[in-house]
């Protein structure tokens, strides 16, 4: 499959999502704005939520959104990539293409949404006067890349399995919901008892969510040791997913 086809699929995925609507792709810009507005209004203004030890009115909104945006990209990539072979079977049966690259269009499509959302988030941070360090922001694309390699690998592995186990589609959605609550996105891991904090280290999503919190909220360097572990985990998983797929490739095509 040529990279043009992947880009075309990503473009279509993005435009088809808003096809028929009056505002079209502008909805992609409206959604993050609305989300930021809601979280700011509800948590900062109405509930007055503050994080322990931090006095800013907007602190909870900033903390929450800095974890929620990457998590949304991550979870959407995993869930959508896990059904990519089934969703695109009409295309697979007509065009000869190397299937392992197919989930890439999901990653690209989600990246566009992430970039747009993050841009609004950064504007929000500037407007609220939150201190930011440019050098730290330069790390975000690298953290995001490692996060998406992990998401792609997981989605790819599930995509192969879901060809044979159709229930996996629903199962992945449930697992991602549970995973969300086991990841410190809406709460701070420091608030948990020590044993729970240790348990969180078994959750790879904690590694990248913590990195975003450190960069955007604490304005500090992330823990690179965790990011290195995540990098290795993501690539090992990718190798496993790819090897697994190659072993079953013929059966996957037959089933589709």
């Amino acid at each position, binding site marked *: 499959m040529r990279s043009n086809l992947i880009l075309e699929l990503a473009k279509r995925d993005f435009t088809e999502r808003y096809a028929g609507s009056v505002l079209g792709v502008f909805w992609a810009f409206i959604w993050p704005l609305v989300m930021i507005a809601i979280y700011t209004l509800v948590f900062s203004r109405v509930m007055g939520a503050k994080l322990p030890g931090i006095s800013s009115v907007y*602190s909870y909104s900033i903390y929450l959104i800095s974890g929620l945006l990457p998590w949304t990209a991550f979870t959407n990539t995993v869930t959508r990539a896990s059904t990519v072979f089934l969703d695109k079977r009409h295309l697979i049966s007509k065009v000869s293409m190397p299937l392992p690259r197919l989930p890439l269009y999901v990653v690209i499509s989600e990246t566009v949404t992430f970039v747009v959302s993050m841009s609004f988030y950064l504007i929000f941070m500037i407007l609220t006067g939150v201190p930011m360090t440019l050098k730290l922001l330069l790390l975000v694309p690298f953290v995001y890349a490692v996060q998406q390699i992990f998401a792609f690998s997981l989605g790819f592995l599930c995509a192969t399995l879901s060809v044979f186990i159709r229930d996996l589609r629903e199962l992945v959605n449930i697992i991602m919901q549970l995973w969300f609550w086991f990841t410190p996105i809406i709460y701070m891991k420091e608030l948990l008892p020590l044993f729970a904090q240790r348990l969180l280290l078994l959750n790879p999503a904690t590694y990248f969510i913590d990195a975003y919190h450190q960069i955007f909220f604490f304005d500090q360097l992330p823990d690179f040791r965790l*990011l290195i572990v995540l*990098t290795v985990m993501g690539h090992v998983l990718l190798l496993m997913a790819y090897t697994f797929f190659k*072993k079953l490739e013929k059966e996957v095509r037959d089933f589709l």
Partner: protein
Amino acid sequence: MTNRPSARIVGAICASCIFFVFFFAGVMYLSKLGFVGNSDHPWRASLSCDVSGIILKSTEITSIPVHIENLGTETIESTSSENAVFLSFHLLTHEENDMRYDNDRYAIPEPIRKNQQKTVAAVLDNTKMKLRPGNYIVEFDLVKEGKFWFSEKENKTLKIPMTVYGGTE
């Protein structure tokens, strides 16, 4: 179509892994040298402690070593300076509700310069605090007297659970 993984793709995955590992390790190394990081902020400090919990008799005095690392650009001055910074703590209930905001100040014996770390012994004296037996949280914070608490500058505090047992006040 072959069942064997393509060497080109396996190679690309390994190369990508090596790239990211070296990138993160490199930035980590540079940050240790002070080339990258959040050093643009004047008041940035990290508090840590080797103790995960405090157990205190109602008539006891205990000392907790708190490590202070200066991650900002300004020097954290010791007591000898007009701009002295002190280690202090807020006392919280075990449900993390504020109980006593202002407590003892602990002097920093010598200035802590950028990227330096010093340890200050925080003495918790229950003969003075007169806490009833129960569970509390000691939230360590730095204070620039009369100016601001470091937590107000978006620094993390250090929370340690504390159990007081024995006779009451």
